[in-house]
């Protein structure tokens, strides 16, 4: 590998610095992809530990382990870190590794900006995590940061705003990089409609990010000035409106939901055809469905706010647009099932996670449809039903697709096969654990348990105990995942160039592990 790097010195590549400086100064898309993925993994354990503490407190009624204020800090930070520190960076990590490899490009379009986009993230992560140590603790107003509650808090609330700004900058720069790479650096012959589905979903995701991150930045800046400079954007006493924050926030927040799931659709759309040994069914309709979801996502935001009180016309409008999203989402599920139909299926770990994704994400989709029905939503808003819904979408959806993607491409990245037995253990424990945590939450929500409460009435005890049990199974089984990755980095069976029998695409034409520099001469695709 280092020989390969030296051999190219005459092309203008410098010898890499070693140690920490290598990682601090790297402009290589593969290094930066790995950095994103490791950052995301560390944050997964940080925010996951918070989740376990939350579930431990909720194991029985009464206050046992934490105080209510600290409980709110845990739920707030768990949400913020899982969204901005785990799922988004992991997908950007995949994009860094795979987009150039899949398009036959030598690197990302702006390698130095790529370095900067990543290194902003640890700064934001440190701001968020260290706020636990400040007087008054971390921010406890919920990841949605609703004023006026968010205005009441102490210094850590300002740090949270700053962290959100920094993560937003990182995402915007990352998106500019991804869009430019995809539009300008495809190898000759790869037309847009020949791009791998993962690339398509990221192209659309990147546009969503560029459109919505500035909106979030605006909303939190208004919070900042309301908190510190006496403005009254969200204070009725000064002519403002607390509900306006919610409108602006969710105008960002709903497209954000698709930012967190479209790349997952992309990963799964690479894996299912591979292990079905059959091309993806309905490629074109898949592209159109992704684009439709993205466009519709800008018209549905107020379904997060049905309980705020809206005119009839607004409730009906947002109910109908939200229900409409089920159509393109349904098309995707049907396409995945049709891809498997009459294939030649094998069930390696990436495929297992992808099948679980299709099945469990659909449960999240259906509970989303139930929540779209405005009158039903008014009963279920801010209950555990909503907690169940978005964890089905984000854990068995986004997170499972990340697991699947790691198992799928790890041999290409490390050059070694992962341990299939451990992988299967990881899969089954994760699936059982995940369903044990989140399925009972549907019942809790229907029966009337509000979310974000540190203590609950006695009739909710049984399901909460089951959920806590599942949370610990799910949480600790992630240590197996860590072991699998470390083992595959250290050694194992050599992976061939084309790791999987049914794999198609340019990334499988380069050696495993992928050399430090690939496709310095563009391949020609017919």
């Amino acid at each position, binding site marked *: 590998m280092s020989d390969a790097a030296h051999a190219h010195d005459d092309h203008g590549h410098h010898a890499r610095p070693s140690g920490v400086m290598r990682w601090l100064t790297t402009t290589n898309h593969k290094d930066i992809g790995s950095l994103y993925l490791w950052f995301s993994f560390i944050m997964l354990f940080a925010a996951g530990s918070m989740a376990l503490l939350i579930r431990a407190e909720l194991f029985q009624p009464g206050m046992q382990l934490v105080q209510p204020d600290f409980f709110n800090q845990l739920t707030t930070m768990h949400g913020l870190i899982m969204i901005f520190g785990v799922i988004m960076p992991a997908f950007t990590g995949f994009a860094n590794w795979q987009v150039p490899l899949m398009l036959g490009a030598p690197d990302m379009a702006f390698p130095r900006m790529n370095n900067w986009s990543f290194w902003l993230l640890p700064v934001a992560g440190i701001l968020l995590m260290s706020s636990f140590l400040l007087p008054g603790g971390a921010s406890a107003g919920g990841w949605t940061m609703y004023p006026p509650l968010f205005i009441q808090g102490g210094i850590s609330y300002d740090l949270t705003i700053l962290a959100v700004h920094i993560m937003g900058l990182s995402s915007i720069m990352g998106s500019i990089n991804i869009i430019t790479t995809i539009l300008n650096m495809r190898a000759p012959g790869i037309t847009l409609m020949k791009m791998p589905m993962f690339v398509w979903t990221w192209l659309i995701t990147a546009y969503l990010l560029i459109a919505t991150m500035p909106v979030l930045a605006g909303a939190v800046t208004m919070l900042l000035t309301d908190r510190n400079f006496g403005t009254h954007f969200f204070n009725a006493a000064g002519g403002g409106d607390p509900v306006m924050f919610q409108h602006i926030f969710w105008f960002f927040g709903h497209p954000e939901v698709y930012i967190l799931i479209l790349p997952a659709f992309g990963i799964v759309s690479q894996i299912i055809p591979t292990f079905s040994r059959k*091309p993806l069914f309905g490629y074109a309709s898949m592209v159109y469905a992704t684009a439709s979801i993205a466009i519709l996502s800008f018209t549905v935001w107020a379904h997060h706010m049905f*309980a705020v009180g809206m005119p009839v016309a607004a409730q009906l409008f947002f109910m109908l647009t939200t229900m409409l999203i089920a159509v393109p989402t349904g098309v995707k599920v049907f396409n995945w099932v049709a891809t498997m139909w009459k294939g030649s299926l094998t069930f390696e770990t990436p495929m297992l996670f992808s099948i679980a994704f299709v099945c469990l994400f659909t449960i999240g989709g259906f509970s989303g449809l139930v929540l779209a029905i405005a009158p039903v939503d008014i009963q279920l808003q801010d209950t555990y039903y909503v907690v169940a819904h978005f964890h089905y979408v984000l854990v068995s959806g986004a997170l499972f697709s990340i697991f699947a993607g790691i198992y799928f491409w790890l041999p290409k990245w490390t050059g070694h096969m992962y341990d299939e037995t451990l992988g299967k253990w990881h899969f089954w424990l994760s699936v059982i654990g995940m369903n044990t945590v989140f399925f009972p939450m549907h019942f809790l929500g229907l029966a009337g348990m*509000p979310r974000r409460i540190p203590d609950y*009435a006695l009739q909710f005890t049984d399901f909460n105990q089951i959920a806590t049990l599942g949370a610990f199974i799910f949480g600790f089984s992630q240590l197996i995942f860590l072991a699998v990755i470390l083992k595959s980095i250290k050694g194992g069976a050599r992976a061939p160039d084309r790791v999987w029998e049914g794999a198609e695409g340019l990334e499988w034409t380069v050696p495993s592990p992928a050399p430090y520099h690939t496709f310095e001469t563009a391949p020609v695709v017919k």
Partner: protein
Amino acid sequence: MNSKWQRSGMRWAALAVSPPVLADYGYNLQVPASSVAHDVFQLHNLIMLVCLVIFIAVFSVMFYSLLKHRKSLGHQAAHFHENTTVEVIWTVIPFIILMGMAYPAAKVVIDMKDTSNPDMTIKITGYQWKWSYDYLNDGIRYYSNLATPHEQIDGTVAKGEHYLLEVDEPMVVPVGKRVRVLITANDVIHSWWVPALGVKQDGIPGFIRDSWFKADTIGTYRGQCAELCGKEHGFMPIVVEVVSEDDYKSWVAKKQGTAHAAAADNDKTFAVAELVARGEKVYQANCAVCHQANGMGIPGAFLPINGSKVATGPIADHIRVVLNGRPGTAMAAFASQLSDADIAAVVTYQRNAWDNKMGDAAQPAAIAAARGGAAEAAAPAAQ
């Protein structure tokens, strides 16, 4: 074992068909007690049924494929990868199903939002962390606090049947009357939610939103605040007592009587010991959640009262803080929440409890004077 499985099987079957039976098991929405809640219940069952049928249909196809189209069984992959007819069908059919769902849902939305022609109107205000009920037709106004003792929450005594879902003063309404509720909040956003009545409406500080219900059965209905509102968010329940018309009338008469008695206290002069004893109760109900029973507050979040400059400084300033609060912080203005006698009592208590041995006392008359003063002070400031 067998019968247990049968029973759970029946519960699942019940989930789809017979609404009133299954609610007792805690697998579905609570037993509805108003027309809106009933409509929502039916709507939810209908949609669940549709989702369940589609889920089973789609995933039987997938699982059939997983079982039969395996490489290990020697199945060869087919090569098809698109079919316009099929793709159009599975785009159009879900669309039609969705529109079929939207129609009954829209009818319920329109009914829910129609708050016209109420028999009575109650204004509900959310505070950190309690509710107040203002009966606009009968001139009754009072606060409703969590009634579960702290010992139960901390686990030093056994938890009662209605743990965390009990209040000192429930909201009382007559059965079969159309009640319009006007909902707002004093400090941050709260949400007034009683599942069995089918009402959930956010209370937004500075704005009034409305909703309505008509309870069809006498009984006690319990709910909770449904919008994160700070550290005691989990501890501000809602209890609605639905009573007969006659019981409602006698309740109104009783409430109006106690209101007169309380008003009379504002004209009295009390001994310091009387004020301290009364003030301790007021403190426990209104102040202790933040400033703590020992007056030490929570470092970094809530300031102490024990040894504070306010509680050991001039009494006029102390009264002013309690009356007007500290804008921009969690310290609420209690001017509208507590009577003159109660504010006098709590101020006196705070100045004489713990290490604050000030020995002085505030009388209700001083509070009344400070209220007047506050109004005068506010007028020029507003110009």
